[in-house]
């Protein structure tokens, strides 16, 4: 009498289960996996290319004026990201990287935000030439023009 699959049955009796023991052993993601975004604000030059190429519009930028220059904050919302890696590919300074971290569980929207802040210094102001003695009205106009230029 012939038993079909007898060899297979005996083999699987003594082999390890095929189930991954997930919560105890967390496997690393494969090479090239696109996971949570890491942003390096010290490398960023505020060109805004990542915002242009982002299809779902997950990247927002806020600019605040402070004494030293512009305080720029980039915010990446992982709850809106498509993980297409276009922002990383288009970043000239390699300030954006998609890491292998893939477990992103959140109860609050704030937990899904990735933020980075840096200060971009304003260019040094050109020396102001001394104002020519003229009528007060003309002087005012010139002063205004200079102000507009310096801004």
């Amino acid at each position, binding site marked *: 009498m012939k038993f079909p699959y007898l060899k297979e049955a005996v083999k699987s009796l003594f082999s390890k289960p095929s189930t991954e023991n997930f919560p105890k052993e967390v496997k690393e993601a494969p090479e090239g996996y696109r996971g949570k975004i890491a942003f390096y604000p010290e490398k960023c030059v505020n060109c805004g290319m990542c915002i242009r190429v982002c299809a779902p519009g997950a990247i927002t930028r806020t600019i605040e004026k402070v004494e030293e220059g512009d305080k720029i904050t980039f915010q990446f919302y992982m709850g809106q990201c498509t993980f297409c890696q276009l922002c990383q590919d288009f970043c000239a300074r390699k300030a954006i990287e998609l890491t292998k971290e893939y477990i992103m569980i*959140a109860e609050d929207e704030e937990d899904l935000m990735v933020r980075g802040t840096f200060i971009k210094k304003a260019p040094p102001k050109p020396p102001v030439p001394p104002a020519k003695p003229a009528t007060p009205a003309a002087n005012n106009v010139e002063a205004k023009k200079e102000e507009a230029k310096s801004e």
Partner: protein
Amino acid sequence: MFEKLIEKGLEKSAWLYHLNTGSCNGCDIELVSVITPRYDAERFGFKIAGSPRHADIIVVSGPITSQSRDRLIRTLAQVPDPKVVVSLGSCPRSCNVFNGSYCVEGPLDKYTPIDVSIAGCPPKPEAIMAGLVRAVEILKEKRRAMK
């Protein structure tokens, strides 16, 4: 006498109801792979239920399209309390790339508070399992609060 036993049994067998509200099928495939032998979410007691009336956890995937909006509201109303709403992927959280489309009616939190959101597009099965385990903890807290 059996109340404690029943309570413990309920905690260890949370049933899922999978609700697709216009998803691209990526998240749905990943959710189904969670119950395959390789990941085997039934170790934690999860089971996909066929009816929302049997479910404890509702897993919503997809941006809410105008066709599926009424069905979403009706289905959520049928689920007995306490329930936990899990948003799977980026779409229910923020509509993802479909944001602003004429046939997409807003993120899920317009209609119901989201308890757990699993980010990813689509999330890996491991991430989904971690999210569901978190959902069960919330379910326990909600059951205790109801007493």
